[in-house]
């Protein structure tokens, strides 16, 4: 069992609070992704779990044991670093065996394990090379191999793909996911790329400014964001936000800042008459429709053949993006009517930023 539990974990550097009390539960075998903009404390949190960084307050529990005072090496974790952090003066084989030698593994066993892992990661022909003679993707594999070979309880990944080019990143993403399915270990993966988070994770933890904004399965975050930040962070292209106010006379009607009036879905939201709210609509749920309630001035159109993106703004300059399947007839500089095509709307309290969803 290697579940991970964070209980009100805090970290401060002097007066600066970097992690402001995080509670989190990662079950055994889960692939959990920490995602957030840079500076949100996700890497610090990972390093606190690993033991490389001290914990100012709270408890880190791995497999049922509080590990606050246990040194990094004895926590049974392995970490893959952003810069790979391979030992430059050692061959790939020595890089892989270094950790095993440190725990006095017999030579023959080391050889077997390296053989096995290098075959699995397809680095068996690189064993006698040094890191500087490897490509970025190969180094990445070696770094992962170095973590795998020690058979840790939990894998920690600190933005492992950010130094790779786009194409390789997609490949490695698939490989890491496959590795997780194969080994079945608990994995914690830090990234600032929400696409990586959505594609790989069982559970995503969205962090901002040292606080946990939302923790849940990828689609849960996408379909039911708890606040404006999560709604804006998850999903590509970015969700559209329209500022407005609930009509005083009818709480199912939204008075948009442009002066237009728009009907909200009847149930599900706890809005009060006159409340300042922000409406969130994903680009796929907003389409050009005859008699649509909102007026959009089109700035540019991207036709990708199979799908199209339309960029523009409302009459009060609120930026709007539409994403429609197939090819569109809309042209640049045109003014069109748009409206939501389904009930996939999100309503947030503008003041607190929290969702008004009731269930």
């Amino acid at each position, binding site marked *: 069992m290697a579940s991970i539990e964070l209980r009100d974990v805090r970290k401060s550097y002097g007066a600066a609070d970097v992690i402001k009390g995080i509670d989190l539960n990662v079950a055994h075998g889960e692939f959990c992704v920490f995602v957030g903009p840079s500076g949100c404390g996700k890497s610090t949190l990972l390093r606190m779990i690993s033991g490389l960084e001290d914990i100012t307050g709270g408890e880190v529990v791995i497999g049922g044991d509080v590990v606050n005072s246990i040194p990094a090496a004895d926590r049974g974790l392995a970490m893959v670093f952003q810069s790979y952090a391979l030992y430059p003066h050692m061959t790939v084989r020595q890089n892989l065996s270094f*950790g095993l030698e440190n725990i006095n593994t017999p030579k023959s066993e080391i050889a077997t394990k390296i053989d096995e892992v290098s075959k699995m990661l397809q680095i068996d022909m690189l064993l006698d090379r040094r890191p500087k003679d490897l490509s970025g993707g190969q180094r990445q594999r070696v770094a992962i191999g170095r973590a795998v070979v*020690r058979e840790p309880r939990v894998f920690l990944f600190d933005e492992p793909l950010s130094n790779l080019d786009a194409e390789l990143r997609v490949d490695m993403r698939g490989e890491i996911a496959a590795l997780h399915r194969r080994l079945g270990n608990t994995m914690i993966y830090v990234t600032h790329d929400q696409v990586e988070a959505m594609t790989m994770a069982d559970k995503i933890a969205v962090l901002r400014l040292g606080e946990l904004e939302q923790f849940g399965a990828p689609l849960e975050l996408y379909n039911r964001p708890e606040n404006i930040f999560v709604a804006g962070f998850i999903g590509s292209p970015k969700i559209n936000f329209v500022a407005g106010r609930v009509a005083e006379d009818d709480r199912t009607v939204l008075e948009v800042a442009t002066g237009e009036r728009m009907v909200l879905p009847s149930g599900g939201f706890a809005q009060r008459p006159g409340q300042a709210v922000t409406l969130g609509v994903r680009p796929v749920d907003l389409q050009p429709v005859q008699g649509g309630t909102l007026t959009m001035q089109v700035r540019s159109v991207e036709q990708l053949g199979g799908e199209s993106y339309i960029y523009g703004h409302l009459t009060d300059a609120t930026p709007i993006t539409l994403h429609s399947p197939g090819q569109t007839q809309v042209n640049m500089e045109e003014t069109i009517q748009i409206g939501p095509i389904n009930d996939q709307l999100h309503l947030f309290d503008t003041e607190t930023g929290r969702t008004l969803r009731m269930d």
Partner: protein
Amino acid sequence: MSRIFSFLTATRGKGRLHWTDWVSYGYLLFGVLLMFGPVVWLVLSSFKTPNELDRFPPRFLPYAQDVAEVEGFEEPLLLFTVTEGDLAGQIVAQTRRAAGRAEVVLPDDPENRIRMPAANLEAIEGIAFATENYTSLFERFNFLRFFWNSTFITVMATLIMLLVNSMAAFALSKYQFRGRTAVLLMVVGTLMIPQTVVLVPLFLITFELGMLNSLWGVIIPGAATPTGVFLLRQYMITIPDEILDAARMDKASEWKIFWRIIIPLSAPAIAVLAILAIMWRWNDFLWPLIVLTRSENFTLQLALNSFQGELQTDWPSLLAMTVLTLLPIAAVFMFLQKYIATGIASTGGK
């Protein structure tokens, strides 16, 4: 070999020499003369006899007068050519010389002694290397003892210094602790104090510790150098912390991280420091002069100094031993000079 040749004969002009070729080769030649002239002069002089060394004007190559064994004389006799008189052009051996007159014999006819003015005789000389300058070092002086002392001090002091300095540099570059900056500033601050200023206190401490007249008295006081700590620290800072973190995750102890990660990765800086330390220790004179007073503890530098007396100087021994003293350090430099170039470039030191 062909690469060296093509490097040394590289020209700018194709086929014929461009004027810049003349200038650059002239300049390089001048540099070679300036650098190697004294060394070549020293080496050639070390093979000269005392008479030849006293000669004025001096000659470039070592010459010695030819001698011959002549029947009836115990010592070999000096050979001359007669320039004037009946025997003009003949080779004679001189048996005696006094007050401007010389007594000579023909080598074939040793019984018949001939007297003539010394001015009529011209010495027959040939190039000869006075190797006895070197052999006497081993016979008359305990050269090997001095050599051993110097080697022992250099090797031990360099090793201890590298160990102490690299450990200090590791702590100062990779650990966060209270007062780290203060320690570093103190270390760098000592760079500003000349050694001569602390000579007396250093002597007193060495004396109190009973290390006077012991080789360790030379080695220990120089075991940690601010230059070395600073140079290594600046280099170790460039080693990414993530590598150390990775090693910690790999269950390596801090001691192991130092030996297996930090030391190999700082090799260029350590090599530079090693070369500097070897040269400094080998050539060091002032401190050994103060600490070592008994001749069996002398280093080569002190032994060289002892050849220079108040009234007379044993030039042949002095020159020969100087050459022998230069050889090891020149060899070390030749083997390690490429590290100096690369190391200094990457440490920013000099």
